[in-house]
């Protein structure tokens, strides 16, 4: 495809490969006259700019020369790698002269552009070549067999390669060897080529086919093979290119007879030794493979001959050809269509003329019809073989999981015949060792549930106080009495406080106490024992007395308040009932102005929101402490959140980070992530690791402490977790990435990543084979409902039955519900905290319909909790003074007071199985409450002040009536059916090898639940029951075929709807058992 055109009849030279941009120098040809027969001459430099779509070349400089040229070359002499000096232009003139020009000066427009000049030669200098090893060496050839070697550093005196060849002849070409720097070849129209060794200073070999028709117009050395060269003949009788190997110099190695008439010029590509250009008097420009003789490409040219042809040294696909019609054309050998170029020219033309009415004729131009044949002609096919420079020798591409796929092709050593090697290989790229190490640690912790020691280690390793705090807070989550510990972390130790109070009391009251007491005693003694005077005088006392006597508590209280007798007022208000007490409190607070009133107000009124919302943020610790002490479980998280949010929004940067602590208390993972991310640079893998460690631990903690609300994965958390998993995957830790990915979320990025990770692990369908995920092995035992006889194996159902294709796959091993023995309620009570931990799945489970089609109905278990904030009883608000009027019937009516027996504090940390569906004990305890039981005051073992947190020490001793929520037992006489069938499934499972069978069996086990239900309900007909017993007996005798026969009989004789739920699976089990021979 033609790229550029210059209308010059000129010799041409490309700028050296190092040069950027690419220039093309032209020097007026001495041999050809252009149409004007002008004798003026010039040296011009054009820029080859491919970003300019036009066919024109931009002329950079023109130097009017007094010489016309037979040969022009551009050597890289003195060019540095940056191309600051643009080399030297070497021109062969008409009269034995060689002129050196400085192209940079020409471009700059200088007048003095000639570096040096020498006219030592005789006749026109037609041959010039620069030594590619020593670019200061230039060979030249002229008439009379003259060959000179010039040193550009010392241009005055040339050397000769040896004695002149005889008879004297014109030298048409000279060429330096491309491999051996001291070898030079020359050729003459007589057809002889001579190879010179400059070290020996003599010709070492003469190459000639003795045909006398070889008229050398071109000579070129093989770019790679030192001993090979080609000669081109200008003679129409022998229009050939001969390939010679000096080792067999008697005849040409190969003769390329592709031209019909004499060849005028050749050029061998330095970029690909299989590309040799030749142009001839047949007006063809051919590109052939000199090693095979095959013509690879014919350039589309006009009918004019070309007398000079050159590869562009820098752009290997580009060549230029000078033709006798006074034009230098630049072509690409990569083919392609010139339509685009042409269209641009048309566009350019139209725009110059004005698009619609170029000639102002009032009529727009008709659309230009480009003739069909032209269009066809414009499509030029590329070279038959791909040029070497298009072949990538090497390439490495990343793929999922941090794998690097590399292909590599060894260098082809043509002359050595070395076998080229081609490799493809896969390597694992690991760049984040520390990150992986820590991630692995975290995983182990999750697996081993060793959270406390992990947190402790983190605390010890913490670099900053804040980090230490965060880990301390996280650690507390896994300890008993978390709220108390939180308080300690905030600087409120109950023991310390107790001591301080004791000290304070002894100081204040110390000396006077006795006196006061004595006084009181003396005052009270008479009232206790003897009579006392009821004054009904007109003063306040009297009025109060009167009011009391008439039962008008309200007025009495008002009077007391008015008289500032606060204590009396409150005491009276208690007697006056709940409503009055509340009013009195309000009035009291309205009157009281002390510093701590607001706190007291909040404590009494239980208005923690007020504290959290309006406290000075500097006091956030105190506010958090108050919340920790008093807040009810249902508002605890919200309050912590609220405080955190305030810190984050209103606080300075220091306080903002402290918000994290609030979020940890609140168990709000999402907000922790948000807050943390704001403060940290999350893009660094290690800082992401920092965050994820906390998040994972906190999520664990939340799972342990709060059964509810752990399942949602927020957008931000999902984002961070998937980022984390992506990082792990990128380091090749696919299994770890899967393990950390939250399971129960529909966040698309997580769902997609999970799918990708599963498949990357070689699992065909995500979810189906989820048993391979690392946590599943952990979970299988967790799914068991504890040490219950007959439940040695948890029935499993293929996950995709829960979730249709395309939906979020369920987490592995999600089988927390199902198959709960009616007696399990007691059996499930874990005996140690360690055991309890294993009951908790590593990640929250999705909320899903609890009664799937194959789920057994009724009792569902919820992951157990370590501490049950739902059961947390907030301290009884101080609605009454310390002296609770025991036996006062009104006090029984106070709401909020837990009416349950006092627990043993040693039981505090035991979790409780409780109802699913979010129903807490709060809701049900009221009807169960035992009237008359002492309220909160009856918990004598509570340390600290009244109202201190006692909630997590409560143990409900009473169990709920179980009839409503548990299944009836299977009648004893039919229990054998269950144990037999389950035992059989177990045996099958243990001998089955392929996962498909195991799935089938798991499913069967699950579905047999329907049978057991029917047994419990005793709804099966006696025929079926007896049939089933027969099957059981045949199973016991391992006669499965008999069992199958009975099975068929039952199915054929019974009502389909009665048996369809379980009979088919029973058949599956029997068939499998038969097959496995268990």
């Amino acid at each position, binding site marked *: 495809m033609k790229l550029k055109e210059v209308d010059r009849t000129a010799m041409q030279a490309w700028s050296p490969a190092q040069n950027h941009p690419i220039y093309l120098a032209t020097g007026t040809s001495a041999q050809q006259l252009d149409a004007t027969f002008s004798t003026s001459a010039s040296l011009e430099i054009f820029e080859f700019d*491919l970003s300019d779509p036009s066919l024109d070349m931009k002329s950079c400089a023109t130097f009017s020369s007094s010489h016309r040229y037979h040969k022009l070359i551009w050597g890289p002499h003195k060019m540095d790698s940056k191309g600051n000096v643009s080399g030297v232009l070497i021109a062969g003139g008409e009269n034995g002269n060689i002129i050196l020009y400085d192209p940079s000066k020409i471009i700059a427009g200088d007048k003095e552009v000639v570096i040096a000049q020498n006219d030592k030669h005789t006749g026109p200098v037609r041959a010039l070549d620069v030594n590619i090893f020593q670019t200061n060496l230039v060979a030249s050839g002229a008439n009379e067999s003259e060959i000179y070697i010039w040193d550009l550093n010392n241009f005055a005196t040339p050397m000769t390669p040896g004695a002149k060849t005889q008879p004297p002849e014109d030298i048409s070409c000279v060429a330096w060897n491309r491999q051996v720097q001291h070898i030079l070849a020359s050729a003459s129209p007589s057809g002889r080529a001579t190879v010179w060794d400059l070290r020996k200073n003599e010709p070492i070999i003469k190459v000639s086919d003795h045909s006398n028709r070889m008229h050398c117009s071109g000579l070129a050395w093989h770019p790679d093979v030192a001993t090979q060269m080609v000669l081109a003949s200008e003679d129409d009788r022998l229009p050939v290119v001969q390939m010679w190997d000096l080792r067999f110099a008697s005849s040409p190695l190969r003769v390329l007879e592709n031209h019909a008439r004499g060849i005028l010029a050749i050029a061998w590509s330095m970029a690909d030794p299989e590309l040799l250009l030749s142009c001839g008097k047949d007006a063809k420009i051919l590109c052939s493979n000199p090693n095979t003789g095959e013509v690879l490409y014919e350039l589309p040219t006009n009918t004019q001959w070309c007398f000079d042809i050159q590869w562009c040294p820098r752009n290997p696909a580009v060549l230029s050809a000078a033709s006798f019609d006074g034009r230098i054309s630049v072509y690409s050998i990569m083919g392609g269509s010139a339509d685009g170029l042409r269209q641009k020219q048309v566009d350019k033309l139209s725009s110059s003329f004005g698009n619609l009415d170029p000639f102002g004729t009032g009529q727009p131009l008709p659309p230009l019809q480009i003739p069909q044949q032209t269009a066809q002609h414009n499509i030029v096919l590329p070279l038959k073989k791909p040029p070497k420079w298009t072949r990538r020798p090497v390439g490495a591409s990343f793929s*999922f999981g941090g794998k690097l796929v590399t292909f590599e092709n060894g260098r082809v050593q043509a002359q050595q015949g070395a076998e080229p090697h081609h490799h493809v290989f*896969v390597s694992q790229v690991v760049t984040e060792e520390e990150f992986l190490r820590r991630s692995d640690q975290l995983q182990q912790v999750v697996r081993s549930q060793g959270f406390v020691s992990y947190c402790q280690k983190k605390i010890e390793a913490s670099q900053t106080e804040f980090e230490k705090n965060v880990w301390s807070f996280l650690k507390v989550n896994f300890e008993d009495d978390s709220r108390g510990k939180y308080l300690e972390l905030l600087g409120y130790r109950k023991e310390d406080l107790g001591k301080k109070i004791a000290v304070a009391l002894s100081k204040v009251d110390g000396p006077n106490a006795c006196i006061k007491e004595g006084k009181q005693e003396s005052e009270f003694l008479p009232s206790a024992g003897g009579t006392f005077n009821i004054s009904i005088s007109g003063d306040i006392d009297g009025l109060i007395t009167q009011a009391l006597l008439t039962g008008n508590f309200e007025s009495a209280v008002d009077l007391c308040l008015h008289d500032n007798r606060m204590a009396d007022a409150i005491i009276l208000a208690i007697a006056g009932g709940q409503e009055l007490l509340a009013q009195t409190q309000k009035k009291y607070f309205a009157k009281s102005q002390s510093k701590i009133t607001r706190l007291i107000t909040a404590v009494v009124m239980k208005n923690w929101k007020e504290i959290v919302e309006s406290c000075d943020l500097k006091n956030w610790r105190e506010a958090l402490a108050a919340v920790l002490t008093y807040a009810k479980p249902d508002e605890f998280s919200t309050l912590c959140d609220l405080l955190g949010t305030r810190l984050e929004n209103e606080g300075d940067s220091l306080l903002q980070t402290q918000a994290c602590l609030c979020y940890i208390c609140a168990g709000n993972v999402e907000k922790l992530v948000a807050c943390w991310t704001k403060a940290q640079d999350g893009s660094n893998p290690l800082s992401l690791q920092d965050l994820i460690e906390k998040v994972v631990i906190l999520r664990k903690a939340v799972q342990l402490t709060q059964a509810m609300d752990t399942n949602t994965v927020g957008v931000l958390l999902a984002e961070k977790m998937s980022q984390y998993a992506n990082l792990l995957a990128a380091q090749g830790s696919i299994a770890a990435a899967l393990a950390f990915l939250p399971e129960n979320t529909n966040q698309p990025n997580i769902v997609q990543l999970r799918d990708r990770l599963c498949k990357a692990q070689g699992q065909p369908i995500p979810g189906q084979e989820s048993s391979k995920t690392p946590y599943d092995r952990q979970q299988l035992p967790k799914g068991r409902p504890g040490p219950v006889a007959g439940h040695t194996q948890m029935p499993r159902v293929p996950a995709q039955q829960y979730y249709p294709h395309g939906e979020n796959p369920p987490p592995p091993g999600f089988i927390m519900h199902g198959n709960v023995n009616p007696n399990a309620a007691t059996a499930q009570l874990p005996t140690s905290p360690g055991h309890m931990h294993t009951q908790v799945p590593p990640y929250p489970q999705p909320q899903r319909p609890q009664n799937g089609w194959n789920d057994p109905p009724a009792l569902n278990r919820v992951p157990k909790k370590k501490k049950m904030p739902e059961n947390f009883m907030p301290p009884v608000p101080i609605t009454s003074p310390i002296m609770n009027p025991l036996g006062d019937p009104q006090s029984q009516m106070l709401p909020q007071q837990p009416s349950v027996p006092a627990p043993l504090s040693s039981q505090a940390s035991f979790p409780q199985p409780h109802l699913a569906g979010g129903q807490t004990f709060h809701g049900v305890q009221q009807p169960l409450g035992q009237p008359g039981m002492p309220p909160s005051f009856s918990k004598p073992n509570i340390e600290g002040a009244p109202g201190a947190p006692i909630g997590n020490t409560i143990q409900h001793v009473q169990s709920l009536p179980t009839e409503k929520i548990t299944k009836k037992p299977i009648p004893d006489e039919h229990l054998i059916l269950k144990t037999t069938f389950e035992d059989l499934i177990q045996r099958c499972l243990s001998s089955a090898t392929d996962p498909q069978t195991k799935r089938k069996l798991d499913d069967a086990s699950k579905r047999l639940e329907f049978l057991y239900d029917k047994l419990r309900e005793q709804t099966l007909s006696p025929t079926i029951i007896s049939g089933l017993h027969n099957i059981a007996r045949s199973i016991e005798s391992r006669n499965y075929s008999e069992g199958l026969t009975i099975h068929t009989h039952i199915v054929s004789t019974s009502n389909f709807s009665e048996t369809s739920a379980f009979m088919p699976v029973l058949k599956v089990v029997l068939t499998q058992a038969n097959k496995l021979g268990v």
Partner: protein
Amino acid sequence: MEFGDASLLPENDAAWRLDYYQHDAQMDYYGTRLATCSSDRSVKIFDVRNGGQILIADLRGHEGPVWQVAWAHPMYGNILASCSYDRKVIIWKEENGTWEKTHEHTGHDSSVNSVCWAPHDYGLILACGSSDGAISLLTYTGEGQWEVKKINNAHTIGCNAVSWAPAVVPGSLIDQPSGQKPNYIKKFASGGCDNLIKLWKEEEDGQWKEEQKLEAHSDWVRDVAWAPSIGLPTSTIASCSQDGRVFIWTCDDTSGNTWSPKLLHKFNDVVWHVSWSITANILAVSGGDNKVTLWKESVDGQWVCISDVNKGQGSVSASVTEGQQNEQ
């Protein structure tokens, strides 16, 4: 050094010798199948799960060396595109376990050097860069039909590489009202023999328009790679060239359309290929000296070579081990 040196762990037997000049090797989305293409005109697919190398398919259809292969996103099925010196682009599809040619694109006049699938969010769109200077975009319109758009003369004398920008909705990086089709702006980068990198953008009328010209290379641009999005408001492109240079181009999306180049390194030989890790933090640079190096940006924004994978002539696993030793 800021980073721990990368180590390359040889996967079991995950290396093999092939008889022909290899031009490309690409893993599928999951990293479980490897497609290779070579000078023998074939495209081969291997199952490489668990370190295996089972030949699944040997796809014949090209009439010249096959330059590149590209896997489509699995949501469209198992689809592979290949491009060849024979001027053709072939799209292969696995149906019922057998791979077959599903489409052949013959719209180029010269070697097709590069194929790249658009982000899956846009549908099935394939960009193809050719030595004829044009870039064509094939869009699957359903029922076996492919619509072709062509950018003529995108790169004079040849386009060497195409690479799509990740699907990012302008303005909002995270929040997108659900149910509403996101208003993606489709973009891709191309590199060519005119030493230029060009960025192309689909206009509202569906036409492709040159949006940017990135000039820094002084020779053919051999490869461009648009970095995967990691949620930051910065776009990044890596480019490598015949001139031995590798540039990292960044554009802060908020600051409009200004791209600034940063020289990653000047190599002594042609740099043929650049590839981003999925997490966009490591760049693999493949040079003409048959060296693969891994680069990572340090905290202060400098690009640091973290591994030098220099393969010897010996066995492959040994050579990878050698790579471990040749750390810079």
